């Protein structure tokens, strides 16, 4: 078990290296010379050469890659071309809104998707099941930003129950925080609920047809305890797998949702950076998101041994 976990942690190293190589090549392949951009219009060739040397741009590819990876491993992502702030400082400033959004979304998703999927599985092939699965297909098909604007239009503009846009830190005022975060989280959660409810249903259907479930039922257990104590844990492996895979969808959703609701998070930061072609910031945010994705999937893999002790590697 310990050796499995250790090997699994080691296996993330090549993945992160590939991510690093890709992100670095991005800057390397960028059309235009960053030194020229930094030097400005009135710079002489000597100025540009000096900046090139100070940035290490005149070194060969592998040497630059090595130096860059070494700095990134220490948490130094370079300096933004536009604001001149270190990228890790900018990311640290923006991480709270993104984390708040992601965590509330996950909370909403788990509390809604699990019961929906279980219910659909218990009532398989009935109208209830079809309504829930119909919702799931719809959730896949409607783009996040359309859902977002529909919710704004209805709850903020028409009913005026909730603020249209913006973000307030939870440490500032929990109630205002909640009023601002509720629409974006639901926007994002709808896609996620669709994804997870589907898998919960199919996984539960599989488990519910097993002999031990029949045994549990026939010894007179209530449906509730059959589901919670016998079925759910055995249905967990595909469910946590899809949560891991879904983190990618969640990150995509975060980027879009932050734009729709004007939330000053990492997604907004990267979109602004792209429009300004601020490559160090783009690199930094991609690295942070990818690192997050790899870590969540690492936890998912490790959780398999907890949910299904038969799994050995």
């Amino acid at each position: 078990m310990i050796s499995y976990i250790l090997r699994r942690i080691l296996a993330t190293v090549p993945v992160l290296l590939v991510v690093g190589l890709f992100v670095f090549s991005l800057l390397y392949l960028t059309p235009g010379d960053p030194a020229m951009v930094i030097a400005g219009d009135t710079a002489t060739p000597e100025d540009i050469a000096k900046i090139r040397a100070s940035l290490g741009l005149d070194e060969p590819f592998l040497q630059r890659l090595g130096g860059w990876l070494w700095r990134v491993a220490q948490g130094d992502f370079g300096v933004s071309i536009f604001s001149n702030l270190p990228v890790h400082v900018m990311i640290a400033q923006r991480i709270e809104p993104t984390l708040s959004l992601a965590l509330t979304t996950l909370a909403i998703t788990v509390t809604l998707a699990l019961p929906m999927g279980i219910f659909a599985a218990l009532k398989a092939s009935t109208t209830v099941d079809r309504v829930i699965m119909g919702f799931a297909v719809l959730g896949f098909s409607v783009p996040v930003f359309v859902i977002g604007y529909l919710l704004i239009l209805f709850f903020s503009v028409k009913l005026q129950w909730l603020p249209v846009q913006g973000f307030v830190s939870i440490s500032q005022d929990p109630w205002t925080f909640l009023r601002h975060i509720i629409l974006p989280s639901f926007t994002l959660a709808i896609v996620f609920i669709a994804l997870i409810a589907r898998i919960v249903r199919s996984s539960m259907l599989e488990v519910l047809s097993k002999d031990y479930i029949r045994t549990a039922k026939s010894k007179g257990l209530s449906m509730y305890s059959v589901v919670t104590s016998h079925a759910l844990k055995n249905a967990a492996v595909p469910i946590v797998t899809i949560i891991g895979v879904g983190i990618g969808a969640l990150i995509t959703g975060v980027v879009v949702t932050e734009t729709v609701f004007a939330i000053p998070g990492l997604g907004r930061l990267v979109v602004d950076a792209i429009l300004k072609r601020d490559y160090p910031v783009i690199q930094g945010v991609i690295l942070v998101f990818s690192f997050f994705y790899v870590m969540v999937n690492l936890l998912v893999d490790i959780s398999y041994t907890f949910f299904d002790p038969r799994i050995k590697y």
Partner: protein
Amino acid sequence: MNTTESALNRGSVSFAWMHALRTLMRRHGMIIVGAGLLLLIALMAVFAPFLGTVDPLSISPAQRLRPPSPEHWLGTDMLGRDTWSRVAYGARVSLTIGLGVAICSSLIGLAIGLVTGFMRRVDAVIMRIMDGLMAIPSILLAIALMALTQASIGNVIIAITIAEIPRVVRLVRSVVLTLKEQPFVEAAVASGTRLPTILVRHILPNTVAPMLVQTTYICASAMLLEATLSFLGAGTPPSTPSWGNIMADGRMVFQLAPGTILYPGIMLSLTVLAVNLLGDGLSDMLDPRLSRNM
């Protein structure tokens, strides 16, 4: 005739028949609805100039942000451009990109997947690269690639294709790995068949069914991704009316003219829904064992 009669005579068998027929209808129902809807949208894209549209690019500032009227069926946007015309022409972009990405990523992914499934050494390297690419959220991967080049439909297709390839490779590879252990492939290997022949004659035909389903899903996700990219301002060039672009333009004025986001959003959702239905239907039809679970 005889079969039908005897089937009718025996209640249980006739019930089974009816049931099979109904399931068949239900299964094909998804394909029919999906394909029909898709056909309608494709027709709209092809015949956009003849569907009561005007030049989707012509601006008339005097008539901006108008509500729907007999002149402007879906109203106008902040530059006075006719929303219906832009939505109708926008279908071309979405369908082109959906189809383009689906075809490109399937072909490339298929080629890589077939080779990696059979060659251990190559497999280890390529799968690490694929894992790395998969670890980068597809929207960010596509955005990053778009930041390298100029906005054009071709570049959007390339960027999204690269983001989608790892998923195809994984699927093909898993099919190949299962097939490799099958007796008919082992027999072919044992009898000295050359690798290319094995790949083409024994492996390839067996990847068709799962690939077909995967391709529809890729098409759907490519269309969503293109709209998202354009919405964020990193996709199709702003001069081309795509559904994502129309919504991006509508962002500033959506409280005044919600139609600029609503109508392209509805069209995009319908199109993606149609493709997803087609995919679900195909997946049920091609793999009935799976359909009982899903």
